[in-house]
Structure formats: C-alpha cells, structure tokens
C-alpha cells in the first residue's frame, strides 16, 4: 500500500494542531506523529502529486523523486532519532516540532517556489522558537533578524523571476529561465541564494550559527545541526542543481562562497576549544562542501556528504549537549577522559568523527571518494586539493578531541583512567541506544556501500547522465 506524500506534511501538521487542543497528552502526540512519519516515509508514492487537483504547472505539486525521497527519509528518521535521544527536552515543544517537521518535509517535497518559501518560513519559525532553549535571547533575535532579511531577499529574487516567467512551478521555471540571459538572472539567483544560504549555514549568512548552536542542548543541537541543516541543504540542492542551475558566472560566485565557507569553517573549528563550537564550525564547513558540490551539479556526492554529516552530527551534538548539561561546560580540555566510563557513547562519537574525516570502511569514506572522483573526472584539481587540505585540518581537530576525551593524563605520563572526569552515567539510556544504532548504521553502510548507495539512489537517479556510473566507486577496483 503506497500513500500520498502529502500525508508526510498533513499528518504532523494536523497533529500539531491537535496537540494544542490536548495539551496534557501533547508529548504522546509528538511521539505518535514522529513515529508515524518515520514509518510512513517508506511507503509514499513516487512521482509528482498535485495538490487540490489542479493541473501541474499551475497548481502546487509535490515532487517525490529519488532526490527528495532521500531527503525526506533522512529528515524523518533523524527527527525520530532526535526525540529518542532527548524526549524530555523535546516534549514541551511538541506542536512546534511537529509543525517544523511538516515544514521540512514540505520544503523538500514541494515543486513550487513560493510554496517552498512558505515552508521555509514554517521551518525557520520553529527553529527560532527552539533556539530560545539556549536562554540567550540576543542570539535568537540575531537568528530571527538574519532569517527575516534572508527571506525578504528570497522573496525579492523570486518575484523578479515570476515577473519574467509568469510561473512559480519549479519545472516550468527551469524551462523558462533557460531562455533568459545570464545578466538578467544574476540578481534574482543571487538573492535566492542568499535567502536559502541562511538556513543552509553558508558564510556570510551563517552568523547566527555560533550563537544558536553554541548554546544548544542535546536536543536542539541535534535538531539544528543535523535535521534542519540537512533539510536546508536538500533545498539548496534542489534549487541550485535542478531548478536554477547557475550558469558559469553565477556558478563561480556561488561555488567560491561555498568553498570559502568550507575553508573558514575548518579553520575556525581548528581553533575552537569548546566541543559544540568545534562541531558547529565543522557543520558549517560540511555545508560549504555540500553546497559547492550541489552548485557544480554533483548531486550524488553532495547527498552523501549531507547524509554523512547529518548522522555524524546527530551523534556528536547529542554527546556534546549531554556533556554540557552534566558538567556545565563543553570545553573539551576540561573534559579529559569523559568517555572512559561511557564507552558506548564514546565509541559512537569516535565512529562519527572518523566517518566525518573519511576513514575507510565508514560511510564518510565513500562520500569523500565520490566527491574527489566527481571533480577529478571532470578535470578540476583545485577543489579536491582544497577538500583534502580541509580534511587534514578536520582530522587534526577531531583527533585532538578524541584523544582528550578518551585518554586523560598528564603529558609525559601514561594515560590514566583515574584522572578522567566524571560519572558513569553522563548519557541517557535511550540516547546511548540511539547513537549506537546510528553508529552501527555508519559502520554497516561503510561495510556494505553498495546497499547503502542503492538506498540513497535507487535507480541511480541522482547521478545524471554523464556522471560516472559509480553508485559507489569502490567496485571499479577489480573490474578493469
């Protein structure tokens, strides 16, 4: 039995409204909504669904192709994982989270640019509300202002395009903007880029990230770094690899911004001493990488990067948030040996970090391999060099953290368990189980890259025609 994809939006939305009526049981409604969505997402019909029964380029439609399917599956599963990790922290925001989930699903699924704007706003507002958990109203306010300015810019760009094309439908827009000159497109595309880049965490629009993510707890951290940012990146991918494919001039500008984001993110993470700050800068860097890939048209590698980053940051932010809640600090210098008595979470954290760095046999390795192959097949050497240099820096700061958290002890003396901070139970049981499952997923998909690749791109539909036929590059080893 396959269902209409609109249910992915309608069910959480309806439940959000219901949760307001029955405030007492809202946490169970939240759980129900998230679980139903996480199951339903595997049983939705592929293809284009019209809303309201109007013929497609004129009515609003939802597009569920390989790309958006990968997106919604990721988002809904991550949302489930996030509430499993910290249900207690989530429950008071039940309607907000449900509406936010609907917004994210809508963002990824929609085939209409204005509808996208509406869903982006839903998502953004739910994010503003969640950011208030950081108890830093000035940071939330900063986020809100940047988000509003971004959305105004997006709207301006969109309306300029509408004036030229008379349509808001993405497919038709692609077709009609094809006839327009680059000079005419330059301003609207840049404005739209700015609007999306706020949520996608690209510099310089990511000014809010440090304040918001740097004060996140184990729930909101996961939501921002993993769920929201993946959704925004999927939207970025949709727009800039399929709808408004940037021509060379706009493309160079966007890709430059994305690569600067990557480099600046890695460098900032390298210098940070606080765990959450390292992670948030690393997220920014990964967003930059994914954005550069999307804007170049390398969709599949970009999706791999997004997925890898999402799962990794899910694990790491939940751990960082829990550490902060326990010790009041997440300065990793002061948290020596925190994993010593919390081995399971430690292992999950390690796997996540290694996967982000691209250690072989973990999922991240295939992501990196595909990224490099995409560029080098095209004959671009500059970007792979930047990516690899970034990876060295990334590996450096991650191993610094891992060493600190695993092996306490003075320099010049053997690592000593007695010098480690803390208690046996820093992390909640459900949280530990969730992160372990996520880590197992990373390892399994690393060991069986083929299966994982098929899950992400069932018919190779993300690869495009001229892309290398590498669902996962690895098999080429023996073939020839």
């Amino acid at each position, binding site marked *: 039995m396959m269902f*209409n994809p*609109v*249910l992915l939006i*309608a069910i959480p*939305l*309806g439940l*959000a*409204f*219901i*949760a*307001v*009526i029955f*405030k007492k049981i809202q946490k169970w409604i939240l759980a129900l909504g998230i679980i139903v969505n996480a199951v339903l997402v595997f049983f939705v019909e592929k293809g284009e*669904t*019209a*809303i*309201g*029964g*109007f*013929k497609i*380029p*004129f*009515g*609003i439609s939802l597009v569920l192709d390989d790309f958006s399917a990968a997106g919604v599956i990721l988002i809904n599963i991550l949302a489930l994982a996030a509430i499993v990790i910290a249900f207690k922290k989530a429950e*008071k*925001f039940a*309607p*907000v989270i449900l*509406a*936010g989930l*609907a*917004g994210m699903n*809508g963002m990824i699924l929609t085939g209409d640019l*204005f*509808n996208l704007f*509406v*869903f982006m*706003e*839903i998502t953004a*507002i*739910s994010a*503003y*509300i969640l950011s*208030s958990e950081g108890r830093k109203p000035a940071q939330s306010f900063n986020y809100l202002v940047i988000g509003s300015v971004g959305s105004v810019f997006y709207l*301006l760009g969109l309306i*300029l395009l509408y*004036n*030229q*094309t*008379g*349509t*808001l*439908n993405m497919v038709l827009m692609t077709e009609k903007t094809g006839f327009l000159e680059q*000079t*005419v497109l*330059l*301003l*609207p595309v840049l404005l739209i880029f700015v609007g999306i880049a706020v949520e996608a965490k690209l510099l310089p629009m990511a000014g809010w990230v440090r304040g918001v993510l740097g004060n996140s707890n184990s729930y909101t951290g996961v939501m921002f770094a993993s769920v929201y940012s993946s959704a925004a990146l999927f939207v970025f991918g949709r727009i800039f690899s399929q709808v408004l494919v940037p021509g060379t001039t706009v493309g160079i500008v966007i890709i430059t911004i994305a690569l600067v984001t990557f480099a600046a993110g890695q460098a900032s993470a390298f210098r940070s001493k606080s765990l959450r700050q390292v992670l948030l800068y690393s997220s920014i860097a990964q967003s930059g990488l994914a954005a550069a890939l999307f804007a170049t048209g390398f969709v599949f590698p970009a999706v791999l990067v997004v997925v890898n980053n999402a799962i990794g940051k899910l694990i790491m932010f939940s751990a960082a948030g829990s550490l902060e809640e326990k010790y009041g600090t997440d300065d990793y210098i002061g948290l020596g040996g925190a994993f010593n008595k919390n081995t399971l979470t430690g292992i999950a954290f390690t796997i996540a970090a290694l996967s982000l760095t691209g250690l072989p046999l973990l999922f991240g390795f295939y992501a990196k391999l595909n990224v490099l192959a995409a560029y080098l097949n095209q004959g671009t050497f500059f970007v792979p060099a930047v990516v690899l240099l970034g990876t060295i820096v990334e590996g450096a700061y991650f191993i610094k953290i891992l060493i600190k958290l695993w092996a306490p002890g003075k320099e010049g003396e053997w690592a000593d368990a007695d010098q480690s901070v803390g208690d046996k139970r820093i992390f909640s049981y459900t949280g530990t189980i969730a992160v372990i499952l996520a880590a197992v997923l990373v390892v399994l998909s690393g060991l069986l890259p083929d299966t994982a690749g098929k899950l992400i791109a069932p018919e190779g539909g993300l690869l495009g025609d001229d892309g290398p036929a590498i669902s996962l590059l690895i098999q080429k080893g023996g073939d020839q």
Partner: protein
Amino acid sequence: MKRVFAGLLAVAFGVVLLLGISASTGLFSYNEELLDDSAASHYIAKDVNGDTGEIIFGETMDAETGSANMVTSVIANYRSFDTLGEVTVLFLAALGVSLLAGSMDKGRKRRKSGFILKVSSGILFPLMLVTGIYIFTHGHLTPGGGFPGGSMIASSFLLLYLADENFRANVRGFKIAEGIAGTLYVVLGIIGLLAGGYFLINFLPTGVVGNLFSGGIIPIVYVIIGLKVGSEITGIITDMFNEEVKA
C-alpha cells in the same frame, strides 16, 4: 561614521537593486499584459484543468473554483496549500509567543481606564466582531477574506484590552479554538484526498459564480481561516498583555 558607512552601503545596494531590476523589468513602467500561459492568466480564466469558456458573473455554474474574487480563488483553492502553510506560520508564531511570554515574570501595572471608554467599547465590540465575521464569510465575493476578517475579530478583542484594564480573554479557549480550526483545515484536505484523490481538492459543488453559497469549500476554508487567525492574533495579544500584567 558607522551610520554614514551604513547609509553608503545601503545606497550602493539600492543602486545595484535598481540596475538589476531594471535589467529584467522596467522600473518606471508596468506590465501591459499578463504573460501568455502564465499561471495568473489561467487562474483568472479558471481554466487550469481545461478550457471552460468565459466565466460570467452571476451566470456560470460549476466553474473550476466558483469564487468571484480571483484572489480568494488563488488563496483558498489554487494555492490553498500555501495558505495552510501560512496559517501554520501564524500558529507557530502564536505558539512561540505563548511559550516564551509564558515563561516571563511580572511587568508593570496598567493604568485604570475611563468609564466612557469601557461602555463605548462594549458597544463597538459586537459591531467589529460581526463585521469581521461578515468579511470572512464573504471573502469569495468581495475584497477581504479570512485574514482581514480574523484580524478584525482580533482587533475587537484588542479594543477590549485597551479599554478595560480588568479584561481577560480566556487564553485556553482561544488555543482550543485555533487548534480545532487548524485541525479542521487539515481534515478538510484529507477529506478531499479521500473523496477526490487530491489533498485539499474542492470536492463540493461550486455553484453559481457570485452567489453567497458558491465556491465549494472556499467559504468553509475562509471561515476556518477567519476563526483561526482571529483566535491566534487574539492569543498573541492576550499573551503579550498577560506578560505585562502578570502579578
């Protein structure tokens, strides 16, 4: 100095916008025609799903949307999904206000208001309420609709707040009202999905263009939106007032 710089940058940005926009659309001229085959032209002719000929006010039966107000037909039918989202935005904002304001503590006391103000606002209140309801029930015929109507309802409550320092609306009641209205909207969509195969499809007969009972689900949607917007904005107002006076 900073301001001068900000001003210069804003001006530079404005110039770029000007240039960029005049590259695509004339800045001092307006469109002479709607673009051929644009969405708007189809919405006006109500022929998205097939040509039905000219729509004549008061004559055409069972047109595609049946709403005389084309903006309404766009909002509540062609792009009803946007509107659902828009309602959700407002819903989230109201929720956010109540979540955040609820966690704040006392503010200053309000001044006592005069007798005349209290009485006259008591007279105005039902008038405004009724006007609001009129506006959203006639949204498919005349300018206006759910949002203006809802805002009017909310402003009637705002009037009471301003006029009477002891007035307290029942926040919980508004929350329940908005929840129910929102749920009904989604349910309406799902009924459409079950009945017509499409979410939010206009599954009722649309009647004669221009009649009060026309437009299929459009008036229903607008009533829902009106109630919802009204209760949401009232909720926001109440929360902000409560936040100020909570002792």
